[in-house]
């Protein structure tokens, strides 16, 4: 049976890992991306997501990091942050990434996603959707690293991106990012049940219960940041605990994953 996935989310700034709260607040050092990738590989995580939050145009740093990580770590990587052109995607794939995350560029030009899916294969293209809650309770997609609000509603946008043949959705609640107060289960459930492509739920994991809840809400995968960087909850603890609670995650007794 297809396992549910546990995916550490690495945010890069200036070639280092950082982690904040609600994207921009309280940004803290979180380590060296290359050695941390090796460490997480030794834990047996399912995939890694690398997002460049500086979203520079050339992705030079990201390409370099992916290249170096690819030499020693053999698991799937998703890379993103400022991806706008076919050449951006090509460069990252050639460096060793398996999936490319597109966010702002998709909103600015939705046809880009369809073109990319056709050229590179739909399974290569992940659309990242960052959203916030408005005071009236409605949700809106934000772009540019959580700096610009759009008129788009996350579910409606996800459905459009599914139509455009993207392979997967990375759904991130900006409000919950770094708070460790739990995932936005209601939105995760709504989106995951409406789509036939996988949804990775991101932001808010603060405890093992939160992780279990996100799976139960219908996420195919959970992305985790602060819980791994700032507590003693290692990926091994999360996967063994979830396995013991009956969740279909990959967790074997040996060190061989």
């Amino acid at each position, binding site marked *: *049976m297809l396992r549910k996935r546990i995916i550490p989310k690495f945010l890069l700034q200036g070639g280092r890992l950082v982690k904040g709260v609600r994207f921009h607040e309280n940004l803290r050092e979180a380590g060296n991306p290359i050695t941390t990738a090796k460490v997480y590989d030794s834990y047996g995580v399912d995939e890694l997501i690398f997002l460049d939050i500086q979203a520079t145009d050339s992705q030079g740093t990201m390409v370099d990091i992916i290249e170096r990580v690819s030499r020693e770590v*053999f*698991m799937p990587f998703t890379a993103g942050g400022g991806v706008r052109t076919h050449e951006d995607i090509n460069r990252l794939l*050639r460096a*060793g990434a398996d*999936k490319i995350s597109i966010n702002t560029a998709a909103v600015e030009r939705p046809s880009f996603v369809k073109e990319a899916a056709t050229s590179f294969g739909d399974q290569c293209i992940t659309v990242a959707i960052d959203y916030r809650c408005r005071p009236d309770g409605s949700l809106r997609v934000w772009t540019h690293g959580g700096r610009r609000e759009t008129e788009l509603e996350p579910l409606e946008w996800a459905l459009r991106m599914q139509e455009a043949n993207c*392979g997967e959705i990375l759904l991130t609640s900006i409000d919950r990012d770094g708070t460790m107060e739990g995932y936005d289960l209601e939105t995760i459930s709504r989106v995951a049940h409406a789509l036939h*492509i996988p949804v990775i739920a991101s932001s808010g994991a603060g405890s093992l219960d939160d992780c279990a809840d996100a799976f139960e809400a219908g996420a195919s995968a959970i992305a985790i940041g602060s819980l791994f960087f700032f507590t003693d909850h290692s990926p091994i603890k999360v996967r063994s605990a979830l396995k013991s609670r009956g969740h279909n995650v990959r967790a074997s007794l040996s060190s*061989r994953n």
Partner: protein
Amino acid sequence: MGNVRSVQNAFEALGRDAVVTSDPGVIAEADRLVLPGVGAFGDAMENLRERGLVDVLNREVLETKKPFLGICLGMQLLAKSSSEHGTHAGLGWIDAEVTRFDFPATGLKVPHMGWDEIVPRGKHPLMAGLRADQFVFYFVHSFFVICREPGDVAASCDYGTSFTAAIQRGNIFATQFHPEKSQDNGIQLLQNFAEWRP
């Protein structure tokens, strides 16, 4: 196109010389061949044809019988045809068809993306060294292969329907999953391939 670099890196991490090429001359000189692939079937076949690689591969694999490993799209290409974005002919080495996962009713997500279990048929040398609970590998595909000859199936997988997870035929082996992305289990398989004497 696709993630060739990781396959190369994996072999190099195992201490093997691996070169990425589309040069027929280099292919002819090589001891073993790996055809990785991610992307669309039709585009890939067109690519192979344009570079004159179909003939080279037919010769080196079917006649010279060099050890061959196909990965993901590289396995699908061995089939007779695929229905991805129109109907396209494959290399035709294996009597098989490629079709799209289509599960309107079950709620299973497409692509089949993530770590899944395979059920090996028999004991192929490329699957040596893996414990019973270690036949879990990384898959990412929207199209699947069904082999008509049961003898060609090295392993199967179940995702809404049973499909071929790995193909075996003499000096040919191919996996729908990505061994170069399957951590220790995958690296074991690649090591077995590097040492394989079919």
